[in-house]
């Protein structure tokens, strides 16, 4: 693993890339943010100045090399500048999830021993103040939005613009210091520390070096031929490695422009206005967009609806082939062109995906229907498989080899092997350095040859050579009769229904499988409205007999499709319950990146699981909930436990399967 920096032309750190961009693309846009209804723009040379003054301000404030600087806020240029400014002075940026409760932040900030924090607004300031006493090393806080902050004690609290101002004032005092510190940065220095949320235990701080980030960004940018002129919309949490790679790594490597939405609620409008050329979203976002389109088409006039239905059917037939460059008859091609003019083009514009050249989805399995919908419109949506420890990229789908059930081939420079028990291992230039202050976990995950265990079970498909992921290795279990139990596989099948937001399947060491289901309030609420079903709350809607009936149909559909799979036909869901509340990251039931914490869910809803297995028809339960501000409350409900029909699997077929 001795990559030299020759391939990157001696550019060994993000601040070095910044300087290159400022001199080469000085007048090109680097950041845009919509503020007061207008897109504000910063060119690369302006960005360099902003970052420099902030870095000088940091030195002025007493930031030392090796210090940790926590960053808490939504995607805004000033936070991206903070990251690079921190790197410039030799400090290590640690972005946190801004929607995390104070308690969660306390762990991370204590673990890394952050001396400084740059936060967005009063809400975040309050959270940090709340936990401050427990953080022994913590010293100064810098905030961006001054609203409501006037009355706070400002001894150790500073305005972002003031820090920059002081930095500019102290230019001659510290510029040499800054240049010296920047000069020391090389491929081995730490670029960023990102905490993985983890479905079990405390978060782990993944240390990524400049080598990791720059190599991963360089090779992936080459893979998809990303150019300086790309436009991306930065809207995914800054604490997540994906955003770091797209909005810092690749953006600085290629020199393209990062656009920040006005607020979380305006994302869809901003997406339309920017029209990104390179776009990333988790399956959930694509799913929601599709649901919205379908809901709105229900309301459309007859002609429009007919046009949409006719041309979408055609697009499904030939769209993916056209995108993959396969041969399609001239008539079909003509019809598709007419469709582009009448339906696909306007629809893509409305979705804000009209200019997308490369789109990625990852993090979860995406429903084949959803995936095909976007591809048939001519949007080059692909899948990748990655994790924080790999600086994202483990596998990628090359253009023309895109499928919904595989995750593609090894990313450039990455080696993959499958262990005997089916777990996927990889190593490559993006492989993380170590877990901060956690040598034990580092040793468990990464061996001395650099191979990292992903914790996922998968296999290479014969013929195509693409990797297929089955499930989290530790979630794969055995049923009471010793057969394979793969909950994720079943859950994904359930979640592909727009009505189902989340599903958790149980069955490890049991004789049959059961499931929890979360309804999707958007889709089900809209259906209820159409069918004149009144409801006052989520809980009431979730417990409505007709909703339960619909869910039963979905579960039975899944059972039928499972029955056809000889490996998993015994994983059919026998009984299920529709939960009275959404699984929520604030309650610790899912991670901030929306992965189910099975252990927590199993403990918390023990009584409901018991009811799923003891044959009772109803179960009364009380559940503790955490509100956004950290207060606790409880909701009680009586849930119906529903039976679902399973398709009997004949012994003959079973034998054939074995």
């Amino acid at each position, binding site marked *: 693993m001795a990559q030299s920096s020759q391939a990157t032309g001696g550019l060994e750190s993000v601040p070095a890339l910044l300087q290159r961009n400022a001199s080469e693309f000085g007048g090109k846009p680097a950041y845009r943010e919509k503020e007061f*209804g207008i897109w504000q723009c910063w060119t690369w040379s302006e960005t360099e100045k902003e970052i420099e003054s902030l870095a000088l301000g940091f030195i002025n404030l007493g930031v030392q090399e090796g210090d940790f600087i926590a960053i808490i806020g939504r995607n805004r240029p000033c936070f991206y500048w903070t990251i690079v400014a921190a790197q410039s002075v030799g400090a290590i940026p640690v972005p946190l999830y801004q929607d995390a409760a104070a308690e969660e932040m306390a762990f991370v900030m204590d673990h890394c021993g952050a001396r400084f924090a740059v936060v967005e607004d009063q809400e975040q300031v309050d959270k940090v103040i709340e936990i401050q006493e427990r953080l022994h090393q913590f010293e100064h806080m810098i905030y961006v939005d001054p609203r409501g902050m006037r009355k706070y004690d400002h001894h150790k609290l500073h305005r972002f613009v003031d820090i920059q101002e002081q930095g500019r004032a102290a230019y001659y005092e510290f510029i040499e210091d800054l240049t010296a510190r920047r000069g020391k940065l090389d491929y081995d220095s730490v670029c960023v520390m990102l905490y993985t949320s983890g479905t079990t235990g405390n978060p782990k701080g993944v240390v990524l070096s400049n080598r990791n980030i720059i190599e991963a960004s360089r090779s992936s940018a080459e893979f998809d031929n990303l150019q300086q002129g790309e436009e991306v919309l930065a809207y995914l949490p800054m604490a997540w490695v994906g955003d770091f790679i797209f909005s810092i790594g690749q953006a600085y490597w290629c020199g393209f422009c990062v656009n920040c939405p006005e607020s979380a609620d305006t994302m869809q409008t901003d997406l339309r206005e920017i029209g990104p050329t390179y776009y990333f979203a988790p399956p959930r976002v694509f799913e929601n967009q599709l649901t919205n389109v379908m809901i709105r088409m229900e309301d459309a006039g007859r002609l429009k609806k007919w046009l949409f239905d006719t041309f979408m059917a055609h697009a499904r037939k030939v769209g993916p082939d056209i995108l993959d460059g396969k041969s399609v008859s001239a008539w079909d091609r003509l019809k598709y062109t007419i469709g582009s003019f009448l339906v696909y083009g306007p629809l893509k514009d409305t979705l804000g995906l009209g200019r997308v050249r490369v789109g990625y989805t990852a993090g979860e399995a995406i429903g084949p229907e959803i995936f095909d919908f976007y591809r048939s419109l001519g949007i080059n949506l692909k899948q990748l498989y990655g994790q924080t420890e790999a600086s994202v990229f483990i596998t990628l789908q090359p253009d023309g080899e895109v499928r919904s059930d595989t995750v593609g081939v090894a990313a450039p420079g990455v080696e993959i092997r499958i262990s005997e028990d089916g777990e996927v291992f990889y190593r490559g230039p993006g492989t993380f350095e170590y877990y901060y202050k956690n040598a034990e976990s580092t040793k468990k995950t990464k061996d001395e040859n650099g191979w990292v265990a992903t914790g996922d079970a998968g296999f290479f498909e014969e013929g195509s050579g693409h990797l297929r992921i089955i499930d989290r290795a530790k979630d794969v279990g055995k049923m009471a009769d010793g057969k394979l139990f793969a909950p994720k596989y079943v859950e994904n099948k359930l979640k592909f229904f727009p009505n189902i937001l989340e599903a958790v399947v149980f069955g490890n060491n049991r004789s049959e499988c059961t499931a929890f289901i979360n309804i999707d309030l958007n889709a089900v609420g809209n259906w209820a409205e159409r069918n004149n079903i009144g409801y006052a709350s989520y809980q009431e809607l979730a417990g409505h007999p007709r909703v339960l009936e619909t869910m039963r149909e979905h579960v039975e559909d899944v059972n039928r499709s499972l029955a056809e799979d000889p490996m998993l036909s015994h994983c059919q869901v026998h009984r299920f319950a529709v939960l009275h509340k959404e699984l929520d990251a604030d309650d610790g039931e899912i991670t901030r990146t929306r992965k189910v914490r099975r252990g927590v869910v199993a403990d918390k809803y023990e009584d409901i699981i018991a009811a799923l297995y003891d044959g009772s028809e109803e179960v009364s339960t009380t559940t503790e909930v955490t509100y956004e501000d950290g207060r606790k409350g409880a909701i009680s409900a009586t849930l119906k436990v529903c039976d679902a029909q399973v398709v009997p699997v004949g012994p003959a077929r079973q034998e054939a399967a074995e």
Partner: protein
Amino acid sequence: MLDATEGYITEDGRNIGGVVMEMHNITLRFGGVVAIKDISFDIREGEIRAIIGPNGAGKSSMLNVISGFYNPQEGEVWYKGAKRPPMKPYQVARQGIARTFQNIALFDGMSVLDNIMTGRIRQMQAGLLAQALWKGKAEQEEVENREAVEKIIDFLEIQHIRKTPVGRLPYGLKKRVELARALAAEPSILLLDEPMAGMNVEEKEDMSRFVLDVNDEFGTTIALIEHDMGVVMDLSDRVVVMDYGKKIGDGSPDEVRNNQAVIDAYLGVAHD
């Protein structure tokens, strides 16, 4: 008691100035019905002043007197040290008093942005012709006003509905848009008629936050009517309590809470 011109600093460090508006023995009748009977109180600059009372106590009538919608038969309104002659509501608005309504009075068919722009009418000087041709001063004014409106949109966090017609918005957001329109007038006194009525707990919390922020950031004097006692006690600096058109209490939230007449009015006792 404080002198009328003297100010003080609240516990949370806000500057409260001298008296900006005074009601002297106001009596308002509708035919034989006496809606307000001989009420006097004052509003200080920079404070949040609440008017509370049971249903039919005359709170909204009082607010309408302040906003100039009703002219009381007896009594005087003093504003900024001068006695206010009977006025039309638009004249009062020109003096820097803006209000929101209990049952929302927005233009349903217009976008949020346009609705808030109507609040800037006081800042638009260009003539009809210039406005129609949209040249010179009119254009420049539009830009300036739009900028001011955008700052309010940002302040009240309604960017996502900027271009949405008001008629399509849920109730809680409409209330917020109404507040935005009132703020757009850059008022020196802001009158809020039941800003939290019909809201759920979360919406109430949001609205309270905004009311406090408006007061804190812009130093706007706020007079509000509210039913929700919890909200009133948390928000306001001083409270006037009305019952059957009469003033039965006046003072800080704590004083009012312990006032026997107030307790009686809310818990109910026989009236003579």
